[in-house]
């Protein structure tokens, strides 16, 4: 019986399946290479890699990194792409991502089952359906006012907006010119990171419903 660490409860069937699937993909242990003395880095990639290790989950923007190692924006993009390419190899357990233009190292998906083993399954942050819908509306229509969101969802959004702001998924983005100058909201880099988006252009297309379609399709 596999128990999760945090709660001590038994893993659910889906958790267990994912855990086992993840484990089966990994090959046997073998000596890869004789290690030598540590050599100091001589490439800008290696330096940037070190910097990205230090900044951890906070990540760094291309501008910051370019300034730190004194190269052009064009160069830093190439450097970051080179690092991304390097880590995309199956040799590495982490990958470099740049969601919302913030670059950081994160573990690859396949590592997670082992992390569960090591730490127990820490309860992931979940998002309610209400939170998801509100976030989706803001992401597609930003900047948008509270009233516009409420009109779309048919329910009050005030508390939800505060919660999402507290979780740093949305922020205020000035005020609308409409009467009363209501506050406008937009999504944050944290949102982009949480939903694996480099830019908002990567959002999936909204479904279109037309009269010709079978109405059943609406609910699939």
């Amino acid at each position, binding site marked *: 019986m596999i128990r999760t660490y945090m709660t001590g409860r038994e893993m659910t069937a889906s958790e267990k399946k994912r855990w086992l699937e993840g484990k089966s993909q990994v090959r046997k242990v073998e000596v890869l290479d004789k290690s030598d003395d540590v050599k100091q880095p001589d490439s800008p990639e290696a330096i940037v890699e070190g910097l990205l290790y230090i900044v951890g989950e906070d990540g760094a923007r291309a501008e910051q990194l370019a300034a730190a190692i004194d190269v052009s924006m064009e160069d830093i993009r190439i450097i970051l792409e080179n690092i991304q390419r390097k880590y995309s190899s199956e040799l590495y357990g982490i990958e470099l991502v740049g969601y919302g233009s913030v670059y950081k190292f994160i573990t690859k*998906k396949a590592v997670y089952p082992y992390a569960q083993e090591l730490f127990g399954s820490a309860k992931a942050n979940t998002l309610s359906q209400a939170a998801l819908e509100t976030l989706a509306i803001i992401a597609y229509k930003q900047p948008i006012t509270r009233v516009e969101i409420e009109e*779309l969802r048919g329910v009050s959004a005030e508390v939800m907006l505060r919660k999402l702001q*507290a979780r*740093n998924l949305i922020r205020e983005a000035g005020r609308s010119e409409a009467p009363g100058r209501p506050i406008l909201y937009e999504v944050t880099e944290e949102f982009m990171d949480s939903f694996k988006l480099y830019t908002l252009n990567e959002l999936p297309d909204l*479904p279109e*419903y037309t009269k010709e379609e079978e109405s059943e399709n*609406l609910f699939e």
Partner: protein
Amino acid sequence: MGFEVETLKFEGPLDLMLHLIHEQQLDIFDLDMEVLTDQYIRYLHAMEDLHLEVESEYLVELATLVEYKSRKLLPKREEELEDDYEDPKDRLVRRLLEYQKYKEVSKTLYDSYLERQDQLSKPVSFDEIVRHRNDIETQKLEGDPYDLLKAMNKVLRRLQLSRPLDIRFTQKALSPEDRILQIKARLRDLPETFSFDTLIEDCDNVHEYVITFIAILDMAKDHYLAFTIDEGDNIWFTRGNNHD
């Protein structure tokens, strides 16, 4: 005819209507408002029978539905049809379709969200930053409770990550009042500007983190301490006006 409530969890009146349309197999593009209104009212009654509070949002949409129904009963008057007049039914259908879009797409988004939750990163090498921060100028102090909340979330997350591999059970009853005294005693040895992380160095469980957080809220209220939050969501303190 009885009315069975399958699930009581709807995100709002539009979500409920979409459910009813699906359940009654109505064509959303040629909406039978009568059936929808009847079912909607039945549903609200069922909620009341279960002593569930019917939220005002449901009643607002009910008013729209009933208004539409009553209008149909009255003879049409010419002057009502202004140029920008949108038929309430068309408007409702438009809103239902629009809402449905975001409801649908939020499922796709949630998949990405869950996938990202399985991909972890490590906290910033914090000590390094503290070493560079010690010589910063005193900044203008500002922030609202939500900044504090955000920063506190970050602290809790860090605690979760630094959790040791074995489980310990400790019960220590520390009151905020005691904690304030402890912090005041420690203030003598602390630098001009110090971080929340410094304050909680002697804590080893969530309870103590929270008590410390409550204590500093109190101290901030009394202007004993002043705080600021930096871009990295770290809480920084200096002595407040009321510090002796």
